[in-house]
């Protein structure tokens, strides 16, 4: 980098023109990928993640089954062209395995796995663009894809990053900010206000932690609203398309009955 980028300038703006607590825009697209049961493309600022969910279905190998609940299998793939510097990561890359296992443990308390003993739920995550907030984008995308696949959840899982620059906390960091300032990732369940994940890879002063944590939980609620709107919009479009298409005369009575129930 030629000159040092100011993380937060005197006017209170960040390098991409946002305020301290301002989030980047999120767009959610539920169009299906291949034969997946549910899939979603989530753009979070310049980060773009595609999540597909298969299942619950029979596990590929007997060894992976758990006798009293479903096994969650998460695979992450980062496209070589997703970052500024080209880097091809293999499937066994430690960083990717860590990311996958973090996502898996985040969702274990959120999915009602006890309903599907001896089966498997596959979550395939493809990262297309990377600009900070990778883990939150993956978690939010997975929540939506699971919902789209009709897998029962106890609650949404909403995740966001938060960091602190000198003494001022900020939310939803870009790569530039992530490289420079200490940050945490928080995943929370908005209805019960429980937290399923808190991670931190950098050092953060203990006095600052509570403030950022509280802010991140609040931001999680905002993201929950956004996600809920997207799910509602999709569901209502599905419901409205149920009525579309001509039905033979004989079937009409049955359709009416379905509508009543």
């Amino acid at each position, binding site marked *: 980098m030629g000159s040092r980028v100011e993380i937060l300038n005197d006017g209170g703006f960040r390098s991409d023109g946002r305020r301290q607590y301002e989030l980047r825009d999120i767009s959610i697209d539920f*169009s299906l990928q291949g034969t997946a049961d549910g899939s979603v493309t989530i753009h979070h600022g310049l980060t773009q993640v595609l999540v597909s969910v298969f299942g619950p279905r029979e596990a*590929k190998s007997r060894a992976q089954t758990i006798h009293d609940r479903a096994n969650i299998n998460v695979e992450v793939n980062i496209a070589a*062209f997703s970052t500024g510097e080209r880097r091809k990561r293999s499937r066994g890359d430690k960083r990717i395995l860590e990311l996958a296992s973090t996502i898996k443990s985040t969702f274990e308390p959120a999915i009602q796995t006890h309903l599907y003993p001896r089966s498997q739920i596959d979550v395939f995550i493809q990262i297309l663009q990377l600009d900070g907030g990778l883990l939150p984008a993956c978690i939010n995308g997975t929540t939506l894809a699971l919902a789209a696949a009709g897998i029962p959840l106890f609650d949404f899982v909403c995740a966001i990053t938060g960091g602190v620059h000198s003494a001022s906390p900020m939310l939803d960091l870009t790569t530039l900010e992530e490289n420079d300032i200490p940050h945490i990732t928080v995943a929370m369940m908005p209805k019960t206000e429980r937290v399923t994940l808190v991670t931190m890879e950098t050092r953060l002063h203990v006095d600052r932690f509570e403030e950022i944590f509280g802010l991140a939980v609040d931001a999680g609620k905002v993201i929950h609203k956004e996600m809920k709107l997207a799910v509602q919009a999709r569901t209502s479009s599905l419901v409205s398309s149920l009525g579309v298409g001509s039905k033979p005369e004989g079937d009409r009575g049955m359709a009416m009955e379905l509508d009543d129930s």
Partner: protein
Amino acid sequence: MALLSKAEKSYIQSSLLSDPPLRADGRALTDFRTIALETGVAPLANGSARVSIGRNAPDGGGGTEVVAAVKLEVEAIGEGEGVDGGRISCSVSCSPTAYPHLSSGALDDLQHDMTSVLHSTLGHSSLRPNNLGILPGKKAWLLNLDIVVFADAGNVYDTIFMAARAALWDTKVPRTRSVEYRAKKLDSIDSESKAMDVDGANQDQGKSVLDTRETTKATDFELPDYWDEGEVLGGREAWPVCVTLNLLPSLHFLDASLQEESSVPLRLHTMFSFPPTAAPCLQTFRLIGPGVTNSTHIQSLMKDGEKYARNIWSALESKLKDEDIRRNQKAREKFICR
């Protein structure tokens, strides 16, 4: 590669062989499904494209979907694999979403197969663009073409080659200018080093001053403009297109769906390039599958293949020109009218 029972296979085969031939989606034998193409999908790449075949419009689901992206790297010649005049390296990776029934080992094998076909075709020296060199004998561009298969609903090879062609067409190579440092006479060094500082061209100027005593050739380069205003790859019209002919005894058909793919015994991949001045060139030819066929049949298939490839090539060409206009001219007009 869908799992089909014997009964399903023979059902598909007999309806293809019936007169007139019948396909599940009502297409004729040489009809393609709808192809959608968009360039410039990866903002951090030098060139990129997304191609989908057979996506159904209302919900955007289904169909084969492939994204290709080109990234350029500067490579030193003589260390590792660097070649004078630049080289091309291709890789294909498949999302497990595309092949949910495959284990990760089988997926790796499949990726390797696709990579080797793509790399041996596009990496061939006859197709190498003439503007990948930077400094003769010292530096050259390494062109990385990365392809991700998101979904496979049949005919994945044709889709991969279309995406590769579109991404390579879209690629812009940054313009470079050779820089040469000459040793100055002692009395002029002072003023010269000041001028160099203003330029800020390179940090190892001290060393270069020493080096150029032995050689007068350019030792380094600089970029006169930003990355997105480079020039297109040389000879970009020549990038090949792939046509897959699915062979049943006595007939062939194009753009097979997954079910059709697994019910034919033999597949023929042909890659043709159509350079603007020279005659059409057959780049790759692969016969895959357990079936057999005779050599006279192959000759007629090659002729047909060339005809189909020509159609695909001209359709792609006009679409890519449209995309160029959409992304440059129209985007500029839109910006002005804002």
